[in-house]
């Protein structure tokens, strides 16, 4: 535990992981040593930048969907990077990881190792997940509700389509079959006439509807079955 008198950059970097894990505000209020770290971060732009970078990266990565990489790929990446090093202590994993690389590999090899790690992460992002447990709506109220909402939306569209289809069908039948037949049989005067009178046309893109026949009630197709 560092004293409040002096905290150097190495000590701060070692505590970055704890700071990010422990909710910065709470840690600042309850743990000794944190105020000194905070003062150092306020005074040291490099350490502050490291903290900001780590926090941003963590946030961005956590916002990604959970994906599974093939085990073989993970093994290959780890074998090429950190497995050869000594075990990394749990506290301060971030700084310890960096130190293990710096002490273990020369600069070009560290660069290659980091590139491999980046490539593995890019593959995790780009390759869609094909395995993994399926969420259970019984344990996920938000998912269960979303399923109901999706079904409702599609059911409503279907109900609307049925109603609109019925109405259009009735209108088309009336205009193209019933009305011409009636006119053909009875004519405007009510007397029987030849059935070659021109029917009205149905225009689905037009506004309004033709006036109904005098004895027919106004059509109103139900939207809910």
């Amino acid at each position: 535990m560092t004293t409040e008198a002096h905290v150097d950059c190495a000590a701060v970097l070692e505590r970055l992981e704890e700071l990010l894990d422990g909710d910065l505000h709470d840690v600042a209020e309850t743990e000794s040593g944190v105020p000194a770290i905070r003062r150092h971060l306020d005074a040291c732009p490099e350490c502050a930048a490291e903290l900001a970078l780590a926090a941003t990266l963590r946030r961005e990565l956590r916002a990604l969907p959970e994906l599974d990489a093939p085990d073989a790929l993970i093994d290959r990446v780890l074998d090429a990077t950190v497995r050869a090093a000594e075990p990394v202590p749990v506290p301060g994993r971030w700084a310890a990881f960096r130190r293990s690389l710096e002490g273990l590999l020369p600069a070009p090899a560290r660069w290659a190792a980091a590139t491999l790690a980046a490539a593995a992460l890019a593959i995790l992002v780009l390759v869609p997940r094909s395995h993994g447990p399926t969420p259970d709506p019984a344990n996920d109220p938000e998912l269960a509700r979303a399923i109901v909402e999706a079904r409702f939306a599609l059911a409503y569209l279907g109900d609307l389509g049925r109603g609109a289809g019925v109405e259009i069908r009735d209108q088309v039948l009336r205009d193209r079959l019933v009305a011409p037949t009636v006119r053909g049989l009875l004519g405007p005067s009510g007397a029987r006439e030849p059935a070659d009178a021109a029917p009205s046309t149905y225009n689905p893109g037009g506004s309004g509807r033709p006036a109904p026949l005098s004895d027919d009630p106004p059509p109103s197709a139900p939207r809910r079955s």
Partner: protein
Amino acid sequence: MWKPARTLWITLLFLVPTTVSAQATSLADNPGYFPIDELGIFSADDTSVEINLTGAMLRMIGKVTADDDPEFSAIVSDLDAISVRIAPMEKLDPAATRDAMARGAALLEERGWQTMVRIRDTDEQIFVYSREAGGEMAGMTVLVVDEDEAVAVNLIGAIDMENLGSLVMGLDLHQLEEALEKAEEKP
């Protein structure tokens, strides 16, 4: 001093959100998108049903329902978004609502949407429009006003009308309405 590790992480930082954003472009940029909220009808107080489902959740729904309801799963998995707004007419001004819906229909036509259904009656208006992109259906917008309620629906994605038609035959709207109300009541 050049720090390759830091450079790498910064590069990665840009790579990840760029990749994610490429996979999830803004809905507003999608040709099948229509801003039903901009109709000015569905305020938070007046709306009785508000549904907003986007691609990630829809694909999750498709995955979860794949075994039990493959037809529903297939339709939902192809959608990028579902937006629904329903407001009871008792809370709205009927004339203003009908005018707003008619303006919405005109706006859809201005933006190149194609008319599928257009019914205007004294008691109800039904407008159904579709949008194509690349030779496939990219979206559907439905605007309905009747004596009971005003409804706006926007679907974004590849909508298979044949499968949708056969699917909805088995869906009971009233049961789903009750289920939706129960789901909304839960904390």
